[in-house]
């Protein structure tokens, strides 16, 4: 029998779609159980309780049928977003989620093969309807997960940014800026802008930047520091950099960063003392003070 192209016109596609929906609804329990078994076998359900497995799998199953039936993916989108939020919060791996969805896709597919194995034409038409839907749902869920991860990363970056570095006045006209953590281009920019504003606001003449808390200093970080120093100098302030660890100084010299523009002193105390000298302060004990009198 030669199949006419019209045979799979819009009307029969709709009919077949209904048939698929009925099929999946009818076999709901059976297929869902199969799915859960396969996921358990692959270890994809680790960390979930029995009730959670039951409700989650039922919801996902019904959502997929809903999408197949209506051709609308709003439900899948909403569900994927909430799933991703919970999944990321609970530390579910992407492998668990994506693996789970792939397994469901296989279970559905397999059941279609079983049902239409005697009629290849119908099977191929059924797959034509089913596969785009399955792929779409899979990509919706995967994207929701990636979005959620990125959102978490962004939130953490914001949080780090908010713990921004304080610029503190130690004495008249002397500021210190203790930097903790990694310096990237963006943070360097923010630090510099903040320092320059503080120099203006406090009428500072000397600034001590302490980098004891900066774990790695590479040529980029060093250049950022040099830029900070130069910008401060344009505003008439001298910058002293303190707290370069042995490793940091070794790396800097080895990679050949020119630090001749940097005024460096061993530690914060030394830096403040050097700043005092520049400003004409001298710290003495009260005993020494009475002697002078």
């Amino acid at each position, binding site marked *: 029998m030669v199949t006419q192209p019209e045979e799979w016109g819009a009307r029969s596609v709709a009919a077949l779609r209904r048939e698929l929906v009925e099929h999946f609804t009818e076999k709901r329990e059976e297929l869902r159980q199969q799915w859960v078994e396969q996921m358990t076998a692959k270890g994809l359900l680790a960390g979930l309780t029995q009730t959670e497995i039951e409700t989650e799998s039922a919801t996902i199953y019904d959502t997929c049928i809903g999408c197949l039936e209506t051709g609308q993916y709003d439900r899948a989108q909403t569900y994927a977003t909430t799933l991703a939020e919970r999944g990321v919060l609970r530390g579910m791996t992407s492998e668990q989620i994506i693996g789970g969805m792939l397994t469901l896709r296989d279970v559905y597919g397999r059941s279609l093969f079983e049902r239409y194995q005697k009629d290849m034409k119908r099977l191929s038409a059924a797959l034509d309807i089913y596969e785009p839907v399955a792929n779409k749902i899979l990509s919706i869920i995967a994207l929701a997960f990636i979005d959620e991860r990125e959102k978490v990363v962004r939130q953490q970056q914001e949080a780090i940014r908010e713990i921004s570095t304080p610029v503190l006045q130690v004495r008249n006209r002397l500021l210190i800026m203790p930097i903790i953590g990694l310096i990237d281009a963006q943070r360097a920019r923010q630090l510099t802008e903040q320092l320059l504003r503080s120099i203006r606001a406090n009428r500072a003449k000397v600034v001590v930047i302490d980098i004891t808390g900066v774990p790695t200093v590479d040529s980029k970080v060093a250049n950022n520091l040099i830029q900070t120093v130069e910008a401060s100098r*344009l505003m008439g302030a001298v910058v002293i950099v303190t707290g370069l660890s042995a490793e940091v100084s070794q790396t800097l010299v080895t990679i050949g960063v020119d630090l001749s523009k940097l005024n460096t002193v061993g530690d914060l105390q030394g830096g403040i003392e050097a700043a005092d000298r520049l400003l004409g302060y001298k710290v003495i004990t009260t005993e020494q003070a009475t002697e002078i009198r």
Partner: protein
Amino acid sequence: MRVPILKQGDYLIAPIQSALSDADFLRMQNELVDQVGKLRSRGVIVDVTALDVMDSFATRTLRSTALMTRLRGAETVIVGVQPEVAFSMVQLGLTLRMEDVETALDLDEGLAFLDRQTKG
């Protein structure tokens, strides 16, 4: 916009009050170099507080003004560079040319610096 040149004791003060064209910068330079000799000034202060932008021409002119006045016996200090201006100059790599020019926070500091240079 012409920059007024004010005599204050041994020093000359050039307060820039708005954005300047290249020609204005050059005219300021000429007048400063000229006046330094005429008035036997020991120091020059160029106040750039009002400038929102310093381009390469401006920095180059300021630097050469400093070098020229030094040859005629007066130290030049640039004062009032705004934080944003300082930052963008560094970003644009314009500071390299400013290395041998003195800078101070504001007019007050500039005067104090010149006092130390000339009287100390």
